[in-house]
């Protein structure tokens, strides 16, 4: 049976009925049309579905939508503002950290979370901080360069 939850997504409050077995990833993608969040495995292995839930990164394919009642969720769609791209998005564009782009939304959310928590990570801290996100195109090299360029 569906249950109504109230969840804040990218600063907007949604009251929405969800199935008990529905994941957050599917709620975002299929019910709300926020298709920027990608799915590459649905089992928590690839990180393509990474979003920020109450200030921490999660694989949204492993979170049930029903668990997010009363929570705050940030997705890739909420990152750019009227002023333009978020600096991390800008850095990914500038440094050539994108190829197919399928990992990019999740990767950028993880990078943002890393830099929010550690403004000056070492290369090793960058590698470890986002090691839950897989990319098959870039060899990670330019992604690291992009994140490195955003250290303060």
């Amino acid at each position, binding site marked *: 049976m569906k249950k109504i939850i109230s969840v804040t997504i990218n600063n907007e409050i949604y009251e929405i009925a969800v199935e008990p*077995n529905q994941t957050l990833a599917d709620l975002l*993608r*299929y019910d709300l049309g*926020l*298709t*920027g*969040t*990608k*799915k*590459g*495995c*649905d*089992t928590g*292995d*690839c990180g*393509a579905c990474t979003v920020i839930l109450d200030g921490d990164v999660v694989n949204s394919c492993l979170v049930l939508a029903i668990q997010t009642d009363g929570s705050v969720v940030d*997705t*890739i*769609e909420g*990152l*750019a503002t009227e002023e333009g*791209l978020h600096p991390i*998005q800008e850095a*990914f*564009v*500038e*440094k*050539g950290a*994108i*190829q*197919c*782009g*399928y*990992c*990019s*939304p999740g990767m*950028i959310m993880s990078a943002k979370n890393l830099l929010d928590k550690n403004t000056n990570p070492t*290369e090793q801290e*960058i*590698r*470890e901080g*986002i*090691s839950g*996100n*897989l*990319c*098959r*195109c*870039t*060899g*990670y*090299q*330019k992604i*690291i360069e992009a994140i490195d360029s955003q250290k303060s």
Partner: protein
Amino acid sequence: MAVGKSVKRIDAVAKVTGRARYTEDFFEPDMLTAKYVRSTIAHGRVTAVNTDKARQIEGVEAVFTYEDVPQTTFATAGHPMALSEVHKDVEDRLLLTRDVRFMGDEIAIVVARNELAASEAAGLVEVEYETYDPLIDPEDILAQDARPIHEGRSNIVGEHNYTFGGDVDQAFDQADHVVEGRFATAMVQHCQLENHIAHAYMDDLDKIVIVSSTQIPHIARRIVGEALGMPLSRIRVIKPFLGGGFGNKQDVVLEPMVAFLTLKLNGRAVQINMTREECMLCTRNRHPFYIDVKTGVMNDGTLVARDMDAISITGAYASHGHAIAAAGGSKQSSLYPKAATRFHARTLYANIPVAGAMRAYGTPQVIYALECATEDAARKIGMDPVEFRLKNVARQGDINLLSNKEILSCGLVECLERGRDFIDWNRKKKDYEQFKTGPIRKGLGVACLSYASGTYPVCVEIAGSRIALNQDGTVHVLVGATEIGQGSDTVVAQMVAQTLSFPYEDVLVVQAQDTDVTPFDTGAYASRQAYVVSNAVFKAANQLRDRILAHAGIMTDEDPKHLDIVNARIVDNRTSEAVMDMKTLAIDSFYHKERGGQLTAEISYKTTTNAPVFGCTFVDVTVDIPLCKITVNQIINVHDSGVIINPVQAAGQVHGGAFMGLGAALSEEFLIDPESGYVYNNNLLDYKFPTFTDVPPLNHDFVETFEPTSGYGNKALGEPPVVSPPPAIRNAVLDATGICINTLPMSPHTLFSAFKSHGFLDGKGGQHV
């Protein structure tokens, strides 16, 4: 000058904002979901299927079995149609099968209103089998009494022989030394981040529209027609953004089935969205090879003879089948053109998952064996492996004896020299002398590669480009070249901007492919696109340029030969003064009541050349004997891919390829049960492709040559970087330990056996002795 500049990717902002729409981001109203019923055995025949229980599940709309599908076999390989019998792909596939050839084969399919109902119902379809012994080991497959995996066909899908450079046996007789080696490579997978996905619907109950994550929209259209017995014009394939392919989507996997289902269901939209487990098990992967190599060498370091005998395993269906071994073997002639060479390969069916095209198409396997053997030959005569290669590799002006074509551009010698300097070869060689014993050892390795810029003369190489001037003075470009993440749309925009002398920002390439609209091109594979499309784009852009200048001439009453385009302005080339801007010209061409028209140019062009590309990898490794672990301390790939159109994007291709090569070298393999054919690790947790913490910083360099057969001097780049890292690492491990590890991947498991058999470890494992 747009060519040679690292302009931003045309699709970068769409991708970083999550706005780029991939196949799964398109929803059709009332779309149904389909799930395959897959075999639970690797080899056998279905004796009964019962779908009663499945049909009772709420939400199930239909169930089809092998009895319901057209009984015409078709080929799935993403090749252009071959007019000659020799190059024809093997037609061995049905939409659903009664004969089971690998664990995961497609027996039936359930269509339901949602994923859950479809999965549940698929699990309730009851299948009974007559089972046969799975044929997995080459010896069993080739046994006289082996059961044919495809009835009426040999288990040998194809056999291929060639020789060049003179009498091979005589060359071996005259060689001072003959070195032999046996090599094996594992089955690995593309693991592109976006799984295979497609949906289909009918607009008007006549035409089928397929939206698919494919590298080959135009080819997919033809094959769907062949599979369903429908005219090609009734099929339309749309390719949105793609989440990677690496060859896995150079094959028709889902398109014929979704088309079949929508036909059966009155045009209702039906989607197949593979799970990761399905995608890894049931799409395509890389052919495992077993290769014997013999090398003849003189005391002065001249490579005189080579003999290679290869077995390639294509798995349950031919897919790209024998083309892989043939293509891989052919790269030797551009790498070591002077040695008398013989290549023999057989490609076998087996009851394991289906191998197909994967980045560099057979070349990584062949060059791995070749470059390990080259190393062994250099060591045999006590020559430095870099010097040995410098003495024997191709140079500009050499003749590729297989194609009988002169190598018009070749920077391989300089690639080797630059790589050697970067890794500090001579100094480290001495320093590492003290690390040849004990538990921690160090070594250096090198390997070369050669590749091609397309498939000609085996296949047709055709590309199309249409460019139209917009009313605001910008241009829109349609190409059949397929953007799959590699950046081809950006490179095309740069080429057009260069030839038209427009700002890069004013050149807009239409991203989505639509076979009803986009010019014909065979798609993204063989690292062909930038090379093959360059000629079509160059010609189309020049044609449009002439038309723009002709219209400017009419407007100004000037002879067009006195006019030029400079930075999107019409300029008088005698005075260098601007005459008008492009928008003024465009508005006149569109709206003047008597003259002009929409200015467009369109070219379809066949490339009948195929430029070889070159490169090498240098690595510095540490081998921890007790831990059975290889650490790559430093790695560089140096490439000659002609003119580099976009250095940042090109670097990305090199990094991505080197990274895949590292995975194949050290950790990636399908773990297949040798008795049952069961795959143990078809998921991203147990299949170990490298994560952020597993790869060292990746370095690259380019030796830029100018390739005269290409529109902008450029050659292939997408696939080659994957080729040389595995042999370079193997050669470095040999340098460090004195042991030839001739099996990929060089995982701790492989190293443990090797170290143990050489007495490096005690019997209990772990202790260094």
